[in-house]
């Protein structure tokens, strides 16, 4: 499903954020991406979102090389991907419902279909009763769950999460992880970037560790 092939990213100024990164993830697989801040986790996710393009090497999604996608094809690609951001990136002037509906609106779904799917997604994260509230009125954990509902409402094949449990206490973190597990169970490929080691160690999942842009460790299920 996801294949990094000797991918490097050098920023203008010479900083190498990723150095010859190669790995593969199967469809329906769930894995952690870890490493210190600045190790390249966010850059790697940005590659997967096509927010940035590699300096060299290839990134294949479902056999398709993302380097060959023109800028005008990016929106179509992004509609297959869901992203959960650390700072949740919710639009504060819109209701919870409108925030979650956004990925469907940009894809041109009719409003009846949007209503049905948004409510299903909000029900999935347990926030069906909050749909008419503004995100600012919600707690941190609730905001993060709205972000997750938005990331999955269009049934993406790949779900990316950047520090999804960043500011949450362990109990909330576990709930969020349980949610991700459920998406994995219906066949979504899930990649979670985090440096929350206690969380990683509770999950028994594949771990990829980045160190100064290089993939230093891949396959362990426990970090000491």
């Amino acid at each position, binding site marked *: 499903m996801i294949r990094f092939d000797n991918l490097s990213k050098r920023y203008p100024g010479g900083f190498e954020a990723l150095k010859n990164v190669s790995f593969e993830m199967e469809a329906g697989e769930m894995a952690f991406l870890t490493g210190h801040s600045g190790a390249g986790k966010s850059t790697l996710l940005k590659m997967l*979102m*096509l*927010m*940035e*393009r590699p300096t060299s090497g290839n990134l294949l999604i479902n056999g398709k090389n993302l380097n060959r996608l023109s*800028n*005008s094809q*990016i*929106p*179509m*690609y*992004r*509609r*297959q991907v869901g*992203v959960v951001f650390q700072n949740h*990136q919710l*639009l504060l002037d819109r209701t919870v419902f409108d925030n979650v509906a*956004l*990925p469907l*609106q*940009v*894809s*041109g*779904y*009719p*409003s009846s*279909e949007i209503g*049905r*799917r948004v409510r*299903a997604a909000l*029900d*999935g*994260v*347990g926030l069906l009763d909050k749909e008419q509230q503004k995100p600012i009125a919600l707690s941190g*954990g609730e905001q993060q*769950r709205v972000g997750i509902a*938005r990331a999955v409402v*269009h*049934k*993406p*094949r790949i779900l990316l999460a950047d520090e999804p449990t960043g500011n949450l206490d362990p109990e*909330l973190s576990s*709930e969020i992880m*349980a*949610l991700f597990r*459920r998406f994995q169970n*219906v*066949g979504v490929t899930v990649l979670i970037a985090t440096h929350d080691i206690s969380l990683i160690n509770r999950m028994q999942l594949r771990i990829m560790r980045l160190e100064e842009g290089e993939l230093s460790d891949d396959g362990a299920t426990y970090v000491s």
Partner: protein
Amino acid sequence: MTVLPMSANQRAGRDGAQRGASGKNIRFGDRWRGYKSHHRATIRESLGKLLREPLQTLMTVAVIAIALALPAALYLTVENIQQLGSNFESSAQITVFVKKGAQPQAIESLRTQLDGLSGVDSTTYISAKQALLEFKALSGFGSALRDLDENPLPAVFLVQPAVSEPIDMGQINRLMTKIASFAVVDDVQIDMVWLQRLHSLTEMGRKVALALGATLGLGVLLVIGNTIRLSIQSRRDEIIVIKLVGGTNAYVRRPFLYTGLLLGLFGALSAAIMIYASLLWLSSSVASLADLYQSQYRLQGLGFVGFLGLMGLGGMFGLGGAWIAVSKHLRDIEPK
């Protein structure tokens, strides 16, 4: 607080949708309906955003209105002067003085000759006697003329040339030379130099209006572009999120294009109202002035076509300004 387990109902919905499509195979009809309702919603939203900041909107609209009204008013002025000129043009006559003592047969053959010329619309003959009567009636020198033994006035042909727009002075000059060469013709006169000058002036005025229009049009483009740029600044996050969830550039552009279009149209509408108001204010004095000269001349307004043209220009400038501003921003956030 716990996360609820997935309800049976929801699981069914999820599975059903999973089987159907992963979000790509939306039926065309549904897509079209979604597209239309999205456009409606976007117009409503753009209008709402403009109305929520009435002062800002009013100021922008006023600037656009003034910038559109100035060249439009100048153009209208030129058109009106042109109209005034062509009123005189149609009465532009060549006066052909017949030699004193010309025989009636010679005059008759001159009439035939004149009528036969190409470029002549019609001729009118005024005999010396008729001319004298007219002169007595109009001049008030009747008693003085009675003392003269002999009629001092010559017989005259009034030749109406077939004039086309714009007047071809060369053609008229050739016609006059031709007429002057006829046997019993004493003199040929026309007073059209001032008409020609008027023509050059209106032509110049039209060019000034065009140049002013182009300059101020550029101004409108910049004003709208800047307004849209500010509105983009305040919606940066929204644009980023929309792009991240797979929104196309067209989707991002749309609300800003509508905002620009609405600003341009409101500006053009206000410009039209300003022009109509000034015409209303001027028309009565112009009418009384024209009446003093026994003229049926009245001020010409924009007319329906002119109004549509003004609206079209305003809308185009609005769309253009918005397009430039959004495209620049979208280029800046393309992946590198």
